[in-house]
């Protein structure tokens, strides 16, 4: 006997009825690696952390993140970074500045060349990390020292993320048109449903028929 459902598509799957044996635990990485996504709400705005995605590679991560985080609300840019490429400082309290609380260690290894690093700050716990700028350095530690000099003075900073610019997959200027259809999809907006008009009309008519 196969499973009969109210949904004809489910019935057509011919699934066996009755209890199925337990599945083997899924293998590690069955759901792929993790990437972190950052979006830009409008031109000139800082890229802000939106959340992780799981994907088999950077390009697929970009597609998933585009769908997951920039499907419903306005967006003009998207950055993707493999989670393991991000270096994270300790977290401090909401009134504290992490740069003052930690000893920024002297670089243990330097690369031959100076390269670009992107710096993100978390201003308040529970909120999202936002991009504060780019520094040039020969290592993650040096990038953090540079970040402290350039961006470290402004009020509470709970946590800092540092990543190499070359590890960030960034949408390009000409990619922006992928978000141009968002405002057209009005059926996904609460505002498109004029419920009160219908209720008021119904009540009016109902009153007339009742009296």
């Amino acid at each position, binding site marked *: 006997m196969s499973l009969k459902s109210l949904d004809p598509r489910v019935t057509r799957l011919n699934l066996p009825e009755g209890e199925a044996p337990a599945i083997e635990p899924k293998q590690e990485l069955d759901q792929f690696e993790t990437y972190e996504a950052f979006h830009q709400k409008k031109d000139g705005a800082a890229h802000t952390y939106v959340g992780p995605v799981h994907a088999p590679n950077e390009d697929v991560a970009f597609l998933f993140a585009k769908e997951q985080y920039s499907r419903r609300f306005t967006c003009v840019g998207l950055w993707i970074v493999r989670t393991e490429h991000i270096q994270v400082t300790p977290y401090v309290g909401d009134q504290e500045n992490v740069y003052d609380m930690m000893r920024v260690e002297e670089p243990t290894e330097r690369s031959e060349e100076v390269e670009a690093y992107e710096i993100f700050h978390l201003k308040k716990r529970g909120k999202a990390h936002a991009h504060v700028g780019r520094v040039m350095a020969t290592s993650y530690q040096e990038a953090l020292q540079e970040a402290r000099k350039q961006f470290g003075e402004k009020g509470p900073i709970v946590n800092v993320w540092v990543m190499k610019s070359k590890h960030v997959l960034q949408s390009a200027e000409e990619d922006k048109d992928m978000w141009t259809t968002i405002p057209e999809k009005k059926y*996904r907006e609460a505002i498109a449903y004029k419920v009160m008009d219908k209720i008021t009309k119904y009540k009016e008519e109902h009153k007339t028929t009742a009296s």
Partner: protein
Amino acid sequence: MYGGGNVFEATKFDNLQTEDPAKLAEFEARIARGEKIEPKDWMPELYRKQLIRMIEQHAHSEIIGALPEGTWITRAPGFRRKMAQMAKVQDEVGHAQLLYSAAETLGKTREQMLTDLINGKSKYSNVFNYPAFTWADSNIISWLIDAGAIVNQMANAKGSYGPYSRALERICAEEAFHLKYGHDAVVHMATGSSKQREMIQAALNRWWPPIMTFFGPSDKMSTHTETLMRWKVKMASNDECRQQFLDMYVPKIWELGLTVPDPKLKKNMETGQWEYTEPDWDEFKRVINGDGPCNAERLAVRRTAEERGAWVRRALLNPKAKYVKPLA
């Protein structure tokens, strides 16, 4: 969308004596100051276990909850409704993605969570073990089940765990459309032909008992519950959520001339509390433990999707990949 129905029974981790008192004091002081907890912070085992369980159940509810409504995409009357229903179902699956990631930051992998769902070890919101017989059932789910979920999620968004709060803020923003869409669909039926009115009333009659169990049984107040409330894991009691839901939505049902199939339902003006027939908690327990009209089908569908997609995931897997927990 998601219902409470969380039963926060004590676990063996309930013994806080085993926790480092200095770290525990610092953790509690942070929450008392109104600061959020982030994944790298020290946290008591009880906090971690309860949050994993709660966020995981929430994630499973989103993914299973998409099934009864997904059923109606192809049969939704009209192109616009098909588009909207599809957008809503896509949102729900997206919510599951957000929530699985939030739970992962606490140390349970996505693979483990999906295995536990398919093997029936983890629960999801019990209402999704009931069938959506008609388009009107789908409308009632879109409106009232989502309404209940929003009551719950708005409360939990104020909770103390950063990644869960961030996910819930995004989820609540998207749910605003679900609620209006569902309400609009119900209003359309209720103000339509007599046949449409009959259909929506019948669907409401079918769904009312599961809706009343949606927030779970009254909490047994214990030191355990008090601890979880102090830690801002549990933000409101099940009864408080149920009362808030009744307060917000019963008048909206009544104004459409629809009736609620509970002769005892009324607001006691003196206490300000709604009175109602006590839901059938024996049935609730029986269904949540597997013996509901759709439990087997829901899990079979999920299992099939997992099995049939396995070769794609294997083919895409980068052999050098290594798992790192999401950051936040």
